[in-house]
């Protein structure tokens, strides 16, 4: 085990899998220079220009070419640079990648991994900070992965690169410097299994992606105040670990979902609705969602801070939920 950063964990996972499987290759802007965040540092030297393809700023074709290459039997990593640019490739993603297997009656195997570093990061303002992961859970055909630790990032990326499904891999870019232990040989982590980050019986907190460390910090502060939170990091949103969440809420009776994305229409709504459908209203004493207000991410640090979810807001939301 080595203590490495999250971005290095992602780099090692891709490296391991590309050494194992020569059909894996990378396409995206600046990937031959190591990628915007160093996720592909050293890859050009090892794998050459045919497998590490720096592309023009042509998101439609980055996405669509990745799909076409998958249809003839290769396994592309489609690097979107920053999540927000996937909007320039929406037809290729939603109408093509997500649909070909179904529309063609199972003839197509769209085995692509689409990497999209997302979330609030270094005051990048409204077009470089979005968290729209809930959109993609709504689209049949796609797997949605939202890791928050170095080990999970590595293990889930390995699974993604061995999957025949199109996988949307939301790298949590604000957590790239976060360090943690990652095994030398990275084993796949199955999709759809939450990480039980903390155990407690008073309330269940469900969370994912870049906000997870602050939720864990908040859980520590709550414990000091006598509130024991059961914290589940979903790690993947489609599929998601409904069983673990339902079991936890069945015990605690209280559910708080925390995500960095806008609350309205966020995946938290789906989690809450499903839990109530499964358990019925009698077993669930209180539910709440904590996310951003429904406004774009602003630039100025005090404005950004005012809107974004943080540890103090998580503590306050949990305490309010305990009173209700």
């Amino acid at each position, binding site marked *: 085990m080595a203590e490495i950063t999250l971005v290095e964990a992602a780099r090692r996972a891709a490296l391991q899998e590309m050494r194992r499987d020569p059909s894996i290759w990378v396409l995206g802007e600046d990937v031959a220079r190591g990628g915007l965040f160093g996720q592909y540092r050293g890859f050009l030297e090892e794998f050459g220009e045919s497998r590490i393809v720096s592309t023009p700023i042509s998101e439609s074709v980055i996405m669509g070419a990745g799909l076409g290459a998958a249809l003839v039997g290769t396994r592309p990593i489609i690097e979107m640079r920053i999540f927000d640019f996937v909007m320039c490739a929406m037809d290729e993603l939603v109408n093509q990648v997500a649909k070909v297997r179904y529309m063609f009656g199972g003839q197509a195997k769209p085995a692509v991994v689409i990497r999209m570093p997302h979330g609030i990061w270094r005051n990048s303002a409204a077009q470089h900070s979005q968290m729209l992961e809930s959109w993609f859970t709504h689209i049949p055909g*796609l797997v949605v992965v939202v890791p928050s630790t170095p080990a999970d990032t590595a293990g889930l990326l390995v699974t993604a690169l061995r999957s025949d499904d199109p996988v949307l891999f939301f790298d949590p870019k604000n957590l790239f410097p976060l360090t943690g232990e990652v095994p030398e040989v990275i084993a796949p982590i199955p999709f759809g299994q939450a990480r039980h980050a903390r155990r407690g019986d008073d309330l269940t907190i469900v969370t994912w992606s870049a906000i997870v460390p602050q939720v864990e910090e908040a859980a520590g502060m709550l414990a000091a105040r006598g509130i024991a939170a059961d914290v589940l990091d979903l790690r993947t949103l489609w599929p998601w670990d409904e069983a673990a969440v339902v079991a936890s809420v069945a015990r605690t009776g209280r559910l708080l979902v925390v995500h960095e994305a806008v609350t309205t229409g966020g995946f938290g709504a789906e989690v809450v609705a499903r839990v109530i459908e499964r358990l019925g209203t009698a077993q669930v004493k209180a539910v709440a969602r904590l996310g951003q207000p429904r406004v774009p991410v602003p630039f100025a640090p005090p404005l950004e801070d005012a809107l974004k979810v943080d540890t103090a807001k998580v503590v306050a939301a949990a305490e309010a939920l305990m009173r209700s």
Partner: protein
Amino acid sequence: MTGTGDNRARLLALYTTMCRIRAFEETALAAHKAGEIPGPLHVSIGQEGVAAGLCLNLRLDDRITSNHRGHGHALAKGAGVAGMMEELFGRAGGHCRGKGGSMHIADFSVGMLGANGVVAGGIPIAVGAAQGLKLLGSDAIVACFFGDGAINRGPFLEGLNWAALYRLPVLFVCEDNGVAAFTATASVTAGPGVAARAASLGVPGVTVDGNDAAAVDAAASRLVAEIRAGSGPQLLHATTYRLTGHTSTDPAAWRLAADVEAARAAEPIGRLRDRLLAEGIAAAELDGIRGEALAEMSAARAAALTAPWPDPAVAWEDVQDCGAMQGAD
């Protein structure tokens, strides 16, 4: 093409493919009018010369991508007729098990990577398929069919630039019937046209009379050979005419009767027929080819009409491996 005999055989092959496409389209139109085929149906009557001339030059392991008007491309690439007709009818034995329909016909077993319901949607996929084939060390090439309407979408610019940049084995085929749905393409397209646009992106383009199947064949033969030998991408601009409406229910009444009449006189099957007659092929032989094609398609229609519908359970299949059942209730 060596001797006269070979040339005749080639012309007859073109004629046969065109007759089969025409017969398929006419049969499908009739079946749609009779209420046997649901959903939108775009036929390519009048445009058969492009599909036939082009695909005669492709190998089984070459790939094609197509658009919403894709029956002819699929047939010419060798897709099975029964599976195509059943797909139009939404039956279990369709190439896509009844889940795609006319607009999403695909037959991967013959390298037909899919029609497409989104204009220009096939361009990025074709480019990527070529890139993948190159990575795999194959010398197969990709032919990418699209209409003149597609050249005003971004993926055309992105895709041609990309293909030129990586010298990919793609033949872009712009099937120019002069209209995009109900709009004359010239009225919404600036500049000197598709071949010039392609050339400006480093993709050499040639224009050919798409209603002259032999001319399409000759041009494609040269281009395919060059591309397979490593020339990088090229573009074939084939002019043609859509003799019917945009969809099966569109009378295209806005067109000038004189224009339609002139187009009928120039349609590709009659033209090749005249040439074959002039070369001494008996009319009876040509009639026989046409008759056989019609019989083949009528039989396919009759079979599709009584073929089983897909089991409703099929609607849940082939969504994805992981997580398909979670949202299925």
